[in-house]
């Protein structure tokens, strides 16, 4: 649904741009392709990595690791899983909901969801292309620590 809106916006933008200036529009499309081609090798590698990781780590395995009473060790495991895996949100949220039903704690789930979104170990090479080594590391480390804090708060609230 939201994707359609994005397409609508992009198409409208392209049409407007084309009416105003053909040459610039062509240049915009060339830049769009160049930026995409620039990240394509990492993009494809990441997709294979996710496929391999998810086929080995089944939802059952994950439930075993961060189930009830896994406590801080569970939070740690959940945060590490969230940092290295790259699951799209529309898979991750139903998975998280299923884990909660199967007895995982809110604290562990919050750590998983938050690191999943903010910390990206596998995408570090891509991030470094834009932000360099230092900023990339600092951003990921602070996002990781922040996720642990979120988990603690969620554990207290829920």
């Amino acid at each position: 649904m939201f994707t359609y809106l994005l397409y609508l916006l992009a198409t409208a933008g392209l049409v407007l741009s084309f009416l105003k200036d053909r040459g610039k529009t062509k240049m915009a499309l060339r830049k769009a392709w160049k930026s995409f081609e620039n990240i394509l090798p990492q993009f494809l590698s990441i997709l294979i990595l996710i496929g391999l990781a998810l086929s080995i780590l089944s939802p059952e395995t994950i439930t075993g690791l961060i189930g009830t009473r896994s406590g801080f060790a569970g939070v740690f495991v959940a945060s590490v899983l969230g940092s290295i895996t790259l699951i799209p949100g529309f898979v991750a949220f139903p998975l998280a909901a299923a884990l909660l039903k199967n007895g995982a704690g809110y604290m562990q789930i919050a750590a998983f969801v938050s690191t999943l979104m903010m910390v990206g170990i596998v995408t570090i090479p891509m991030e470094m292309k834009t932000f360099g080594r230092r900023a990339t590391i600092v951003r990921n480390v602070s996002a990781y620590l922040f996720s642990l804090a979120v988990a603690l708060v969620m554990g207290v609230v829920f």
Partner: protein
Amino acid sequence: MKALLKRYRFFLALAALNLAVGLALPEIGKRSVELTAQNLLEMLAVIPPIFVMLGLLDVWVDRATMMKYTGKGSGLRGVLIAFLLGSAAAGPLYAAFPVAGVMLRKGSSLMNVFIFIGAWSTTKIPMLTFEAASLGLPFTLVRLMLSLAGILVIARVTEKSLSPQQQAEIDTLNRNP
């Protein structure tokens, strides 16, 4: 050709690894190929409009405008614009990095670009609605409140950790792709 092989060597190695896994453990190999294909299709569905808009942004928004609205000294308005730009996005976080590159090249401040990255990672509107549907509204709202503060703190910490020299290096990285 050689350069192409070099750029894709990691991908080729992973593809070979996947093939080896498939030969040794056909079940896992098959499932991973299916997952990869499914993910690829899903990602290819969201990615084209993001990059088209990136191209349009690059061509139509000039440096002066970008600097005025999101550059150094753009204040609260710059922060809000960065938040909104990131939240209105779709797609995985790594698609945000090239967009961030364009923003930097056009003169956005590092702080605002880090806010944009933070918003893209956690406060994307479509993801929030999905989170609320799966994990409940209270869970989502509490996490959102924490994230809003967290994004600002992380952006600040990251920006402050960089020496002027390191900031200049980031500028060089994004000068011209």
